[in-house]
Protein backbone atom coordinates (compact mmCIF):
# COMPACT_ATOMS: atom_id res chain seq x y z
CA UNK A 1 0.00 0.00 0.00
CA UNK A 2 2.80 2.33 0.94
CA UNK A 3 4.73 1.62 -2.28
CA UNK A 4 1.58 2.27 -4.28
CA UNK A 5 1.08 5.61 -2.56
CA UNK A 6 4.70 6.56 -3.24
CA UNK A 7 4.26 5.75 -6.92
CA UNK A 8 1.10 7.85 -7.18
CA UNK A 9 2.85 10.72 -5.44
CA UNK A 10 5.75 10.50 -7.91
CA UNK A 11 3.36 10.55 -10.87
CA UNK A 12 1.44 13.51 -9.46
CA UNK A 13 4.62 15.39 -8.67
CA UNK A 14 5.94 14.75 -12.18
CA UNK A 15 2.68 16.03 -13.63
CA UNK A 16 2.81 19.16 -11.49
CA UNK A 17 6.43 19.84 -12.45
CA UNK A 18 5.64 19.34 -16.13
CA UNK A 19 2.68 21.70 -15.86
CA UNK A 20 4.89 24.31 -14.17
CA UNK A 21 7.54 23.88 -16.87
CA UNK A 22 4.97 24.28 -19.65
CA UNK A 23 3.46 27.32 -17.95
CA UNK A 24 6.88 28.92 -17.58
CA UNK A 25 7.68 28.20 -21.22
CA UNK A 26 4.39 29.64 -22.42
CA UNK A 27 4.67 32.80 -20.32
CA UNK A 28 8.37 33.34 -20.98
CA UNK A 29 8.91 36.76 -22.63
CA UNK A 30 10.16 36.69 -26.20
CA UNK A 31 13.54 38.15 -27.15
CA UNK A 32 11.65 41.10 -28.60
CA UNK A 33 9.92 41.70 -25.27
CA UNK A 34 13.11 41.21 -23.27
CA UNK A 35 15.05 43.71 -25.36
CA UNK A 36 12.23 45.97 -26.47
CA UNK A 37 11.88 49.67 -25.75
CA UNK A 38 10.16 51.27 -22.78
CA UNK A 39 7.26 52.95 -24.53
CA UNK A 40 5.48 56.11 -23.51
CA UNK A 41 2.30 56.84 -25.45
CA UNK A 42 1.59 60.33 -26.71
CA UNK A 43 -1.69 62.10 -27.37
CA UNK A 44 -2.42 65.38 -29.08
CA UNK A 45 -1.76 68.41 -26.94
CA UNK A 46 0.02 66.57 -24.12
CA UNK A 47 3.75 66.71 -23.49
CA UNK A 48 5.32 63.29 -23.05
CA UNK A 49 8.89 62.46 -22.11
CA UNK A 50 11.22 59.59 -22.79
CA UNK A 51 14.73 59.18 -21.47
CA UNK A 52 16.10 61.77 -23.85
CA UNK A 53 13.24 63.15 -25.93
CA UNK A 54 10.18 65.27 -25.28
CA UNK A 55 7.28 65.52 -27.70
CA UNK A 56 4.06 67.49 -27.94
CA UNK A 57 1.85 66.53 -30.88
CA UNK A 58 -0.27 69.31 -32.31
CA UNK A 59 -1.93 68.03 -35.46
CA UNK A 60 -1.81 65.33 -38.09
CA UNK A 61 -3.25 65.37 -41.59
CA UNK A 62 -2.79 63.90 -45.05
CA UNK A 63 -1.87 65.88 -48.16
CA UNK A 64 -1.41 65.07 -51.83
CA UNK A 65 1.29 67.71 -52.08
CA UNK A 66 3.32 69.60 -49.52
CA UNK A 67 5.26 72.80 -49.97
CA UNK A 68 7.90 74.53 -47.88
CA UNK A 69 10.56 77.19 -48.33
CA UNK A 70 10.49 77.09 -52.12
CA UNK A 71 10.30 73.30 -52.24
CA UNK A 72 7.31 71.45 -53.64
CA UNK A 73 6.87 67.83 -52.69
CA UNK A 74 5.21 65.86 -55.47
CA UNK A 75 4.48 62.20 -54.88
CA UNK A 76 2.63 59.32 -56.47
CA UNK A 77 1.58 58.40 -52.95
CA UNK A 78 0.34 60.64 -50.20
CA UNK A 79 2.00 62.68 -47.47
CA UNK A 80 1.27 62.28 -43.78
CA UNK A 81 2.14 65.47 -41.92
CA UNK A 82 2.52 65.37 -38.12
CA UNK A 83 3.13 68.74 -36.52
CA UNK A 84 4.41 69.30 -33.01
CA UNK A 85 7.36 70.21 -30.84
CA UNK A 86 10.23 67.87 -30.16
CA UNK A 87 13.09 68.39 -27.76
CA UNK A 88 16.21 66.77 -26.39
CA UNK A 89 16.71 66.49 -22.63
CA UNK A 90 20.31 65.36 -22.27
CA UNK A 91 22.46 66.41 -25.20
CA UNK A 92 22.71 66.94 -28.93
CA UNK A 93 20.75 64.22 -30.68
CA UNK A 94 19.00 63.52 -33.94
CA UNK A 95 15.54 62.06 -33.47
CA UNK A 96 14.79 58.90 -35.35
CA UNK A 97 11.14 59.08 -36.38
CA UNK A 98 9.22 56.39 -38.21
CA UNK A 99 5.67 55.24 -38.85
CA UNK A 100 4.64 51.60 -38.51
CA UNK A 101 1.63 50.42 -40.49
CA UNK A 102 1.13 46.70 -40.01
CA UNK A 103 4.46 45.04 -40.73
CA UNK A 104 5.78 47.97 -42.74
CA UNK A 105 7.84 50.79 -41.30
CA UNK A 106 8.27 54.12 -43.05
CA UNK A 107 11.03 56.51 -42.04
CA UNK A 108 10.15 60.19 -41.85
CA UNK A 109 11.04 61.68 -45.21
CA UNK A 110 14.13 63.82 -45.54
CA UNK A 111 13.00 65.19 -48.90
CA UNK A 112 11.95 68.55 -47.38
CA UNK A 113 15.47 68.77 -45.91
CA UNK A 114 15.69 71.63 -43.42
CA UNK A 115 12.03 72.54 -43.97
CA UNK A 116 10.94 69.63 -41.78
CA UNK A 117 11.90 68.39 -38.36
CA UNK A 118 14.46 65.62 -38.10
CA UNK A 119 17.71 67.53 -37.79
CA UNK A 120 19.84 67.64 -34.68
CA UNK A 121 18.34 68.91 -31.44
CA UNK A 122 20.19 70.74 -28.69
CA UNK A 123 19.40 69.98 -25.08
CA UNK A 124 16.77 72.31 -23.64
CA UNK A 125 15.94 73.94 -26.98
CA UNK A 126 12.94 72.12 -28.44
CA UNK A 127 11.98 72.67 -32.06
CA UNK A 128 8.50 73.03 -33.46
CA UNK A 129 7.57 72.10 -37.00
CA UNK A 130 6.45 69.02 -38.88
CA UNK A 131 7.56 65.50 -39.61
CA UNK A 132 6.41 64.23 -42.99
CA UNK A 133 5.98 60.66 -44.15
CA UNK A 134 5.69 59.68 -47.80
CA UNK A 135 3.28 56.75 -48.03
CA UNK A 136 1.79 54.68 -50.83
CA UNK A 137 -1.94 55.22 -51.17
CA UNK A 138 -2.47 51.54 -50.42
CA UNK A 139 -1.19 52.24 -46.89
CA UNK A 140 -4.38 54.18 -46.18
CA UNK A 141 -6.54 51.14 -46.81
CA UNK A 142 -7.18 48.13 -44.63
CA UNK A 143 -7.43 47.67 -40.88
CA UNK A 144 -3.75 48.43 -40.23
CA UNK A 145 -4.32 52.03 -41.32
CA UNK A 146 -6.58 52.52 -38.30
CA UNK A 147 -3.75 51.85 -35.88
CA UNK A 148 -0.64 53.28 -37.49
CA UNK A 149 2.01 54.10 -34.92
CA UNK A 150 4.45 56.98 -35.16
CA UNK A 151 7.59 56.35 -33.07
CA UNK A 152 9.93 59.06 -31.80
CA UNK A 153 13.24 57.70 -30.50
CA UNK A 154 16.98 58.22 -30.69
CA UNK A 155 17.69 55.08 -32.72
CA UNK A 156 16.06 53.05 -35.44
CA UNK A 157 16.04 49.75 -33.55
CA UNK A 158 15.42 50.75 -29.95
CA UNK A 159 16.58 48.15 -27.45
CA UNK A 160 16.22 48.67 -23.71
CA UNK A 161 15.78 52.40 -24.16
CA UNK A 162 12.78 54.66 -24.20
CA UNK A 163 10.58 55.45 -27.17
CA UNK A 164 7.54 57.67 -27.61
CA UNK A 165 4.71 56.14 -29.63
CA UNK A 166 1.64 57.86 -30.98
CA UNK A 167 -1.22 55.86 -32.50
CA UNK A 168 -2.91 57.45 -35.52
CA UNK A 169 -6.05 56.43 -37.38
CA UNK A 170 -5.03 57.32 -40.93
CA UNK A 171 -8.55 56.74 -42.23
CA UNK A 172 -9.93 59.46 -39.97
CA UNK A 173 -7.41 62.21 -40.75
CA UNK A 174 -8.23 65.32 -42.75
CA UNK A 175 -7.01 64.96 -46.35
CA UNK A 176 -5.82 68.17 -48.02
CA UNK A 177 -4.84 68.62 -51.63
CA UNK A 178 -1.91 70.92 -50.76
CA UNK A 179 -0.38 71.74 -47.40
CA UNK A 180 2.30 74.25 -46.53
CA UNK A 181 4.64 72.90 -43.86
CA UNK A 182 5.08 75.11 -40.83
CA UNK A 183 8.65 76.40 -40.80
CA UNK A 184 10.72 74.68 -38.13
CA UNK A 185 12.04 76.82 -35.34
CA UNK A 186 13.41 76.64 -31.84
CA UNK A 187 10.97 77.19 -29.05
CA UNK A 188 12.20 79.06 -26.02
CA UNK A 189 10.75 77.18 -23.05
Amino acid at each position, binding site marked *: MSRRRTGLTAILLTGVLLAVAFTLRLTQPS*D*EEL*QGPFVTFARFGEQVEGRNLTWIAEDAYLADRVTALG*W*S*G*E*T*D*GVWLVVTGTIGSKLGVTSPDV*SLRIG*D*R*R*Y*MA*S*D*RPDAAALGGSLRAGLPQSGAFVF*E*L*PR*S*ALEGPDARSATARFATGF*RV*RLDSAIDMVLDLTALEHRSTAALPPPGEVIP
Partner: protein
Amino acid sequence: MARLTLGHRLARIHPFVWIGAAAALAGLVAWPLGGWDTVELESTKIPEVAVGELVEGHQFSLRIQSAELTDVHPNGFSEDAAGWTWLVLGLEVTNETDLTEFSSRLGGSYDGAVSIDAGVAGLGTTAVDADGRELRGEPYLVSDGTYLPDLQPDLPTSLLLVFQVPETTWSAGDELQIGIIDRTPYESTLGTGIRYGFPAPVAIVKIRVAQGATPAPTAEPAP
Protein backbone atom coordinates in the same frame (compact mmCIF):
# COMPACT_ATOMS: atom_id res chain seq x y z
CA MET B 1 29.56 -34.30 -62.38
CA ALA B 2 26.20 -32.62 -63.03
CA ARG B 3 25.97 -30.21 -65.97
CA LEU B 4 25.27 -26.57 -65.07
CA THR B 5 21.98 -25.24 -66.43
CA LEU B 6 21.72 -21.72 -67.95
CA GLY B 7 20.04 -20.54 -64.78
CA HIS B 8 22.96 -21.77 -62.71
CA ARG B 9 25.47 -20.13 -65.06
CA LEU B 10 23.63 -16.80 -64.89
CA ALA B 11 23.39 -17.03 -61.14
CA ARG B 12 27.17 -17.37 -60.89
CA ILE B 13 27.74 -13.98 -62.62
CA HIS B 14 28.83 -11.34 -60.09
CA PRO B 15 26.12 -8.70 -59.25
CA PHE B 16 28.50 -5.87 -60.22
CA VAL B 17 28.63 -7.27 -63.73
CA TRP B 18 24.84 -7.18 -63.90
CA ILE B 19 24.85 -3.57 -62.67
CA GLY B 20 27.52 -2.57 -65.20
CA ALA B 21 25.61 -4.27 -68.02
CA ALA B 22 22.39 -2.50 -67.04
CA ALA B 23 24.18 0.87 -66.94
CA ALA B 24 25.77 0.25 -70.36
CA LEU B 25 22.38 -0.70 -71.81
CA ALA B 26 20.79 2.44 -70.32
CA GLY B 27 23.58 4.54 -71.81
CA LEU B 28 23.01 3.04 -75.25
CA VAL B 29 19.26 3.61 -75.05
CA ALA B 30 19.81 7.21 -73.90
CA TRP B 31 22.11 7.97 -76.86
CA PRO B 32 19.49 8.35 -79.61
CA LEU B 33 17.17 10.07 -77.14
CA GLY B 34 19.68 12.89 -76.58
CA GLY B 35 20.78 11.79 -73.15
CA TRP B 36 24.42 12.52 -73.91
CA ASP B 37 23.88 15.92 -75.48
CA THR B 38 25.40 18.92 -73.77
CA VAL B 39 22.56 21.23 -72.76
CA GLU B 40 22.30 24.63 -71.15
CA LEU B 41 20.31 24.64 -67.95
CA GLU B 42 17.14 26.70 -68.26
CA SER B 43 17.75 27.92 -64.71
CA THR B 44 21.02 29.55 -65.73
CA LYS B 45 19.48 31.58 -68.56
CA ILE B 46 18.80 35.19 -67.65
CA PRO B 47 15.48 36.24 -69.19
CA GLU B 48 15.43 39.29 -71.41
CA VAL B 49 12.65 41.77 -70.71
CA ALA B 50 11.48 44.72 -72.76
CA VAL B 51 12.07 48.36 -71.94
CA GLY B 52 9.31 49.52 -69.59
CA GLU B 53 8.45 45.99 -68.48
CA LEU B 54 8.31 45.41 -64.74
CA VAL B 55 10.91 43.07 -63.27
CA GLU B 56 9.55 41.85 -59.96
CA GLY B 57 12.09 41.09 -57.26
CA HIS B 58 12.18 40.19 -53.58
CA GLN B 59 14.00 43.38 -52.60
CA PHE B 60 13.26 45.82 -55.41
CA SER B 61 10.98 45.69 -58.42
CA LEU B 62 12.31 47.71 -61.34
CA ARG B 63 11.16 49.09 -64.64
CA ILE B 64 13.91 50.42 -66.92
CA GLN B 65 12.53 53.30 -68.96
CA SER B 66 15.35 55.16 -70.68
CA ALA B 67 19.08 55.45 -71.20
CA GLU B 68 20.91 58.47 -72.51
CA LEU B 69 24.40 59.87 -72.75
CA THR B 70 24.85 63.45 -71.71
CA ASP B 71 27.60 65.88 -70.91
CA VAL B 72 25.26 67.79 -68.61
CA HIS B 73 24.92 66.14 -65.22
CA PRO B 74 21.30 66.06 -63.99
CA ASN B 75 22.30 67.84 -60.77
CA GLY B 76 23.33 70.85 -62.84
CA PHE B 77 26.77 71.38 -61.37
CA SER B 78 28.91 68.21 -61.56
CA GLU B 79 31.45 68.51 -64.35
CA ASP B 80 32.58 65.53 -66.36
CA ALA B 81 36.26 64.74 -66.66
CA ALA B 82 38.00 64.88 -70.04
CA GLY B 83 37.28 61.69 -71.94
CA TRP B 84 34.33 60.81 -69.73
CA THR B 85 30.60 61.37 -70.00
CA TRP B 86 27.42 60.61 -68.06
CA LEU B 87 25.17 57.67 -68.76
CA VAL B 88 21.75 58.41 -67.27
CA LEU B 89 19.27 55.59 -66.75
CA GLY B 90 15.63 56.45 -66.12
CA LEU B 91 13.85 53.83 -64.04
CA GLU B 92 10.96 53.23 -61.71
CA VAL B 93 11.79 51.39 -58.50
CA THR B 94 9.48 49.88 -55.91
CA ASN B 95 10.89 48.90 -52.55
CA GLU B 96 9.38 45.49 -51.83
CA THR B 97 10.77 45.18 -48.31
CA ASP B 98 9.06 46.14 -45.07
CA LEU B 99 11.42 49.02 -44.31
CA THR B 100 12.52 52.25 -45.91
CA GLU B 101 15.59 51.47 -48.04
CA PHE B 102 18.45 53.63 -49.24
CA SER B 103 18.53 54.27 -52.97
CA SER B 104 22.32 54.37 -52.74
CA ARG B 105 22.12 50.59 -52.87
CA LEU B 106 20.72 50.50 -56.36
CA GLY B 107 23.77 51.26 -58.45
CA GLY B 108 26.63 49.72 -56.50
CA SER B 109 28.63 46.67 -57.40
CA TYR B 110 28.46 45.05 -53.96
CA ASP B 111 24.83 45.58 -53.12
CA GLY B 112 23.43 47.00 -56.35
CA ALA B 113 20.30 46.06 -58.22
CA VAL B 114 21.10 47.70 -61.57
CA SER B 115 24.25 47.13 -63.58
CA ILE B 116 25.26 48.44 -66.95
CA ASP B 117 27.37 45.51 -68.00
CA ALA B 118 24.79 42.78 -68.41
CA GLY B 119 24.37 41.56 -64.90
CA VAL B 120 28.03 41.41 -63.95
CA ALA B 121 28.00 44.39 -61.63
CA GLY B 122 26.56 43.43 -58.32
CA LEU B 123 28.52 40.22 -58.52
CA GLY B 124 31.95 41.79 -58.81
CA THR B 125 32.37 44.43 -61.48
CA THR B 126 35.78 45.79 -62.39
CA ALA B 127 34.44 48.96 -63.99
CA VAL B 128 35.76 52.21 -62.52
CA ASP B 129 34.90 55.90 -62.80
CA ALA B 130 37.19 58.77 -63.80
CA ASP B 131 38.82 58.80 -60.36
CA GLY B 132 39.60 55.10 -60.53
CA ARG B 133 36.97 54.24 -57.95
CA GLU B 134 34.53 51.42 -58.40
CA LEU B 135 31.70 52.46 -60.71
CA ARG B 136 28.47 53.31 -58.88
CA GLY B 137 25.27 54.76 -60.22
CA GLU B 138 24.24 57.88 -58.33
CA PRO B 139 20.48 58.04 -57.71
CA TYR B 140 18.44 61.24 -58.11
CA LEU B 141 14.72 61.61 -57.59
CA VAL B 142 13.02 62.69 -60.81
CA SER B 143 10.33 64.83 -59.18
CA ASP B 144 12.57 67.25 -57.30
CA GLY B 145 16.16 66.20 -57.95
CA THR B 146 16.80 64.91 -54.41
CA TYR B 147 20.14 63.09 -54.25
CA LEU B 148 20.10 59.67 -52.54
CA PRO B 149 16.35 59.69 -51.90
CA ASP B 150 14.84 57.16 -49.53
CA LEU B 151 12.76 54.40 -51.08
CA GLN B 152 9.58 53.94 -49.09
CA PRO B 153 7.98 50.47 -48.98
CA ASP B 154 5.50 49.71 -51.76
CA LEU B 155 5.79 53.21 -53.27
CA PRO B 156 6.86 53.24 -56.95
CA THR B 157 9.53 55.92 -57.29
CA SER B 158 10.94 57.40 -60.49
CA LEU B 159 14.71 57.82 -60.35
CA LEU B 160 17.66 58.72 -62.50
CA LEU B 161 20.77 56.61 -62.02
CA VAL B 162 23.84 58.46 -63.21
CA PHE B 163 26.98 56.53 -64.14
CA GLN B 164 30.27 58.15 -65.15
CA VAL B 165 31.50 56.20 -68.17
CA PRO B 166 34.26 56.62 -70.77
CA GLU B 167 33.14 58.54 -73.84
CA THR B 168 34.25 55.70 -76.07
CA THR B 169 32.20 52.91 -74.48
CA TRP B 170 28.82 53.81 -75.99
CA SER B 171 27.53 56.20 -78.59
CA ALA B 172 23.98 57.35 -79.24
CA GLY B 173 22.12 54.53 -80.98
CA ASP B 174 24.23 51.75 -79.47
CA GLU B 175 22.54 48.91 -77.66
CA LEU B 176 23.13 48.85 -73.92
CA GLN B 177 22.57 45.71 -71.85
CA ILE B 178 21.33 46.44 -68.37
CA GLY B 179 21.43 43.71 -65.76
CA ILE B 180 18.79 43.55 -63.02
CA ILE B 181 20.00 41.87 -59.84
CA ASP B 182 17.80 40.58 -57.05
CA ARG B 183 18.49 39.27 -53.56
CA THR B 184 16.45 36.98 -51.36
CA PRO B 185 15.73 37.26 -47.63
CA TYR B 186 17.90 34.88 -45.66
CA GLU B 187 18.01 36.05 -42.07
CA SER B 188 16.03 38.15 -39.60
CA THR B 189 17.32 39.28 -36.23
CA LEU B 190 16.27 41.90 -33.71
CA GLY B 191 19.42 43.86 -34.45
CA THR B 192 19.34 43.84 -38.23
CA GLY B 193 15.77 43.10 -39.29
CA ILE B 194 15.37 41.07 -42.48
CA ARG B 195 18.62 40.74 -44.40
CA TYR B 196 18.84 40.10 -48.12
CA GLY B 197 21.61 38.15 -49.83
CA PHE B 198 22.52 35.69 -52.55
CA PRO B 199 22.63 38.23 -55.40
CA ALA B 200 21.65 36.83 -58.76
CA PRO B 201 20.96 38.43 -62.14
CA VAL B 202 17.24 37.97 -62.81
CA ALA B 203 16.73 39.93 -66.03
CA ILE B 204 18.51 41.70 -68.84
CA VAL B 205 17.08 44.77 -70.53
CA LYS B 206 18.44 45.76 -73.94
CA ILE B 207 17.93 49.40 -74.70
CA ARG B 208 19.09 51.87 -77.35
CA VAL B 209 21.16 54.67 -75.89
CA ALA B 210 19.80 58.11 -76.74
CA GLN B 211 21.75 61.33 -76.95
CA GLY B 212 20.89 63.65 -74.09
CA ALA B 213 21.67 67.27 -73.54
CA THR B 214 25.00 68.71 -74.53
CA PRO B 215 26.50 71.78 -72.89
CA ALA B 216 25.43 75.08 -74.34
CA PRO B 217 28.27 76.59 -76.38
CA THR B 218 30.06 79.30 -74.47
CA ALA B 219 29.77 82.66 -76.10
CA GLU B 220 32.94 84.00 -77.67
CA PRO B 221 34.21 86.94 -75.68
CA ALA B 222 33.67 90.19 -77.47
CA PRO B 223 36.89 91.60 -78.88
